[in-house]
């Protein structure tokens, strides 16, 4: 009996969760974070915190607030050094476990993101699946914008990236992927670009910021990003529009690709051979032509393959010029030539490598018309 009593008393220690217990109402849930370069080398961190009362659905159908969130900012000598300043501005405890997106200003990204994003991988409550976004405008401004959907901006971006239909001119990069890639010797990182259309009150998520190490090396347009997506197999629903002499402008949807990459080492130079097997649904011919014959389809496929061939080559050359290996060709080279692999020499080899692209395009459907 005495033993059982002792054991029962000892169970009190098992209630250790009480130390970490915190009421939800006493937490400031951070949904999005903004990182900006401030004056004197400081970093400005802004937090988007929802106002829970504004988010509740009112049964009477009263209007939802256009800005159901608050924004607090602080500057510090490092990203996490701003937290005391942010703590002073919020009366409830800051909770980073619900971060959905992190907006980073391009000016800060050009100076290097190893330091400013280190806490994102170290802090155990920061979700590694949170999305990163790059913006030309100050990140704190992007966190404060009103959207036509009256939704919290961070949630809108998450919904965007969760949709497979959007994987065309932009691809997501999560915190864990970015942190791995900027420290990797075999590949580089990218971050999708986001802008705000003030007139239509909506986000424009298109293009990629590509990195050389931890520094932003350049920006890829939506078209270039599409080609990168086809080369990496990330594309789920690309749209292609090609001018042709015979059928006017031909447009495809649901374009996907199964790429194969080979690397050959000829003496001192590398050769990248990309074989892209792409396919898509024909959705539009501006001349309204129907009843395509097999020869017509063959002609369209050849034209599209040539177009893709040219555009893919241009996109890869652009990446080479920026010295950014977001295609993870370094990983492939290390895997196929482990004895020749030298991390110090890789970027030089990469920038001087020759490119060969071969594309096969197949029209798999032509919609509800012949």
């Amino acid at each position, binding site marked *: 009996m005495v033993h059982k009593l002792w*054991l029962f008393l*000892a169970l009190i*220690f*098992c209630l*250790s*969760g009480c*130390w*970490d217990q915190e009421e939800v109402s006493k937490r400031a849930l951070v949904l999005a974070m903004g990182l900006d370069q401030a004056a004197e080398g400081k970093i400005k961190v802004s937090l988007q915190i929802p106002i829970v009362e504004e988010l509740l659905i009112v049964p009477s159908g009263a209007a939802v607030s256009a800005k159901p969130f608050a924004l607090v900012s602080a500057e510090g000598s490092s990203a996490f050094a701003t937290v005391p300043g942010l703590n002073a501005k919020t009366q409830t405890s800051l909770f980073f476990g619900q971060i959905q997106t992190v907006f980073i200003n391009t000016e800060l990204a050009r100076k290097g993101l190893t330091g400013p994003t280190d806490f994102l991988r170290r802090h*155990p*409550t920061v*979700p*590694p*699946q949170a999305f990163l976004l790059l913006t030309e405008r100050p990140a704190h401004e992007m966190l404060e914008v009103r959207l036509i959907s009256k939704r919290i901006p961070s949630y809108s971006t998450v919904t965007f990236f*969760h949709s497979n239909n959007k994987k065309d001119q932009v691809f997501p990069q*999560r915190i*864990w992927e970015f942190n*791995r890639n900027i*420290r*990797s*010797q*075999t590949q580089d990182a990218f971050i999708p670009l986001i802008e705000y259309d003030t007139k239509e009150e909506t986000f424009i998520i298109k293009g990629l910021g590509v990195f050389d190490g931890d520094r932003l090396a350049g920006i890829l347009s939506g078209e270039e990003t599409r080609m990168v997506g086809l080369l990496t197999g990330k594309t789920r629903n690309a749209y292609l529009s090609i001018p042709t002499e015979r059928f006017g402008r031909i447009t495809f949807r649901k374009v996907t690709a199964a790429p194969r990459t080979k690397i050959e080492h000829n003496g001192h130079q590398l050769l990248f051979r990309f074989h892209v097997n792409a396919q898509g649904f024909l959705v539009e011919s501006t001349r309204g032509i129907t009843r395509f014959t097999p020869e017509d389809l063959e002609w369209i496929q050849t034209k599209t393959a040539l177009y893709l061939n040219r555009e893919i080559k241009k996109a890869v050359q652009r990446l080479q010029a920026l010295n950014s290996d977001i295609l*993870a060709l370094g*990983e*492939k080279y*290390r*895997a*196929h030539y*482990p004895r020749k692999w030298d991390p110090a020499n890789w970027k030089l080899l990469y920038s001087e490598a020759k490119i060969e692209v071969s594309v096969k395009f197949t029209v798999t459907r032509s919609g509800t018309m012949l």
Partner: protein
Amino acid sequence: MNQERTSIGPWLFWSLSTITCFGFGYINANIYNAETMGANGYLAVPLAALCSIPGLIAIYLLMKRFPNHNIIQQSIVILGGFLGRLVSIIYLLFLLVFFIVYSTDVAILIHNYLLESTPFYIICAADLLIAAYLGSRGIETVSRIASFVILPLATVVFLLFILILPEVRVDRLLPIFNFQFNFEGVGGTSILNIFYPMGLWAFITPYCKNIQQKIPRMTMLAFSVLISFFLLDNIGTIGIYGHTYISQLPYPSIETFRTVEISYIFIEQAGLFGVIVLLASTIISSGFSLYAISLGMSQVLGLWDYKRFVWILTPLIFITNIHLAHPGFIKSLSHLFAKHGWMVIWGYPILLSILAFIFKKKGKTTHGS
């Protein structure tokens, strides 16, 4: 009373062998594998299993010679009263320190990932109290709990592996067989550490005498489950992070599960499931280790029974846990044990087996000597 009058069946034996290695390897497996074999770290798993077999055969042979004795009693018979006790004390001290390092590592993990504000000593106390309670209830309780949790636990882990597969990039695992064919090149000794807990079987051989014929089969079954689990773990971790980045992560398996994203489901952080699964297996593993060490202590010293030793050792382990609570220090100690632990865990049973064969030592047939 040093021994319980009980026996364990083949299913309980299998569950216990599997789950003790599972909890331990979950924390340690891929760190040393990637460190020694680089992108081929996953190949270290079958190699380590292969290299662990001689030690297990030695324990099995000793079991056949001494069906009523465990390794401590065997060593007293083989080496004589004084030397046998002396060597056994060193062996037990090694296991004790090994257990302390392991339990501190688990407590640090809980402190980091789950209970940040909870004082470290409370986590250690809670962890140890559960392990001590389990250990004090004897081998039957420990093995029954192991058999109870193993199936749901394995299901959750394998589901998590399926979810991480889309993130794996095959290039990070290539080229296969890209290592030097020398001792360090094929993994060195540190890869053996993932199967160390199987060595604790040497303490419970008297309870397995009724299933002696089935032990090789059950051990192979445990090996096949563990090999597939650790292979998936290593392939997932290296395939996602790459072998160079793993060295920066204290718990790569947990970080791998944290990458899982289940869109549109409100529980988006599957890593938490990984941590919970780990805790369940480590507590059973700790309970079994504590039981084995306490049983050995009571047999070597001829004092009390293992239950009392469980409660004597618990506060000592607790104090040491608190003083070792630095992640970097614990990882360097783990590394040391991983590199040299095989000498004791596998070397000692092999040595005893050879000596028993040379000196033609055999155990008595009566139970509970």
